[in-house]
């Protein structure tokens, strides 16, 4: 998993902010952002604590995407780094 440790926010291909929506739009917005990317590209998703961070990572995993890292921003939000899976 050495490559994961080296994955940096600055290296992400795109970013999405889903802190302005609630379930189930959180998942939809993240999914739409991932659809813009090519397979293998990474997306950083900013989400709120609580329900979004409990459920959005799992929902993206179940869609087959690769979750790389979850980091706390210290302001009640989290950044989830995801690598897009092939279809």
């Amino acid at each position: 998993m050495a490559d994961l440790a080296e994955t940096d926010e600055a290296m992400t291909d795109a970013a999405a902010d889903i802190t302005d929506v609630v379930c189930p739009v959180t998942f939809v917005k993240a999914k739409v952002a991932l659809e813009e990317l090519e397979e293998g590209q990474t997306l950083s998703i900013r989400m709120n604590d609580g329900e979004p961070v409990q459920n959005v990572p799992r929902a993206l995993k179940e869609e087959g995407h690769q979750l790389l890292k979850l980091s706390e921003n210290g302001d009640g939000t989290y950044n989830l780094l995801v690598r897009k899976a092939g279809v």
Partner: protein
Amino acid sequence: MAEADYKALKSGGFMRQVQKNHFSMRLKVIGGRLTAEQLAVITKISQKYGDGHVHLTSRQGVEIPFIQLEDIDAVKVELQEGGVAIGVCGPRVRTVTACQGSAVCPSGCVDTYPLAAAISERYFGRQLPHKFKFGVTGCMNNCLKAEENDLGVKGGYTIEWKKDACTLCGVCLKACREGALTRTDTAILLDADKCNHCGRCVKSCPFDAWHGEPGYILSFGGTFGNLIAKGEQALPIIRDTETLFRVADAALKFFDEYANPSERFRVAINRAGWDKFKSEMEAAYHG
């Protein structure tokens, strides 16, 4: 059928209606599952012998109301030929309910339908001092409301952390709602006393670093009719159906032995004593 034997009709799933000589025909449904073919048969019977509507019961059953007394035998035959079984009422094991479980639902920890079918196969219709309800729910979300049942079954995971697969990404720490997980620089620590077996860590982990072993959490003595009481957990999580059935056998035996006629399981346990009940369940659990 000149003289109606209401008790026999009731045990055979015919519920007397307000309207004289009319019955609501209760069907046997396991875990709320009917095939399209069965639904077509039910539709036909309802139109031919009923008034063209069915009632979906509170426990995933189906009743066909407005069957006339003289048609009961014909209805029985036509249902049977169409692959639809007749339900029961009265002092016996009732419809076994279930959610869709892990076969369909992403949240499910156990495959509920085969278990509900096995429970139904073993106990459905068995005579007891009073009605007895089983319900199977696949996970902690408890869509099927396990604790409303005389014997509720709830799916859960016994979890184990796989150090080598873990990247310490932290997803499980947030997925856990019980505060059972903490992270150090080198490990994820589990507080087993706080773990409720929900399996959210397993489901959310991107790296399969949590292994979840499916199991069953039983609750006893739930009732939601005249008396309202939540089923109580008396045993640790059960890992195999053999143990589950050993315990369920013992629970029904306890009910048979200690209940007065027309007394619900809950009341019988209350009177005989929960300590006594729990020790008998523990004995069955350990085999």
